[in-house]
């Protein structure tokens, strides 16, 4: 069994690693009371904090939802030995109200390595807990060219082989 499953190529039957997380409102409220908003500046971007802000300050349920969504999204990447890169998994509220995930820096790199182009999340909360589930969108892999490379005459040439295969079309990774 592979230690770190990597998503199969898109376009056929396959699977995706879901991620899920639950966050206690009491726990986050304690952190907000004990450390203030500064604590969450290490986890959320200014835009995310703005999404959580109300006239009365940061909304704890919104904070919990963002935190759960980031953790759920991170779980889809199936990486070991790495901490959640909090500010690099950005969860913003779309105009329609649903959450959108943007991967940056190390998170985007981890996603690439796992064959994932984007992550979609759903958040729910009720009184004491917020939960989030995340599903990755599998990145299309470039087609394997069956055309042999055209080599130059010189056997000592270090020039890269020239492929006559059509250019690779792929969905760019959101960053």
């Amino acid at each position, binding site marked *: 069994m592979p230690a770190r499953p990597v998503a199969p190529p898109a376009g056929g039957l396959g699977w995706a690693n879901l991620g899920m997380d639950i966050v206690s409102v009491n726990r986050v409220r304690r952190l907000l009371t004990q450390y203030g908003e500064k604590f969450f500046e290490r986890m959320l971007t200014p835009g995310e904090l703005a999404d959580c802000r109300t006239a009365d300050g940061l909304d704890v349920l919104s904070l919990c939802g963002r935190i759960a969504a980031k953790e759920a999204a991170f779980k889809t990447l199936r990486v070991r*030995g790495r901490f959640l890169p909090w500010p690099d998994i950005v969860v913003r509220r779309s105009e329609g109200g649903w959450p959108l995930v943007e991967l940056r820096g190390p998170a985007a790199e981890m996603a690439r390595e796992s064959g994932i182009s984007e992550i979609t999340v759903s958040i729910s909360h009720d009184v004491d807990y917020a939960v989030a589930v995340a599903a990755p969108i599998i990145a299309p892999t470039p087609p394997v060219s069956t055309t042999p490379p055209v080599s130059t005459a010189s056997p000592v040439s270090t020039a890269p082989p020239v492929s006559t295969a059509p250019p690779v079309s792929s969905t760019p990774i959101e960053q």
Partner: protein
Amino acid sequence: MADGLQTVKNWILERHPERDDIAPDLDLIENRLIDSLSFVEFVFLLEQESGTAIQMETLEVDSIRTLGAIEQHFFKAPAEVQA
């Protein structure tokens, strides 16, 4: 044990009352004594106790995986680390 490391140990124990002690080589991550959310708080504590600014983005998991590793990375005097 350095005072700072003892404070770190006590901090973990306070959050896990089911434990009486934490062995220096116990894996804090695998045993879920530190999770993603508490990790951020844990970094705050480590910075406070060790007097060292910590970049979460570049922090290696293995440097906080056990109390022994934490002592080595954050509470050893430079001369001790080199020895």
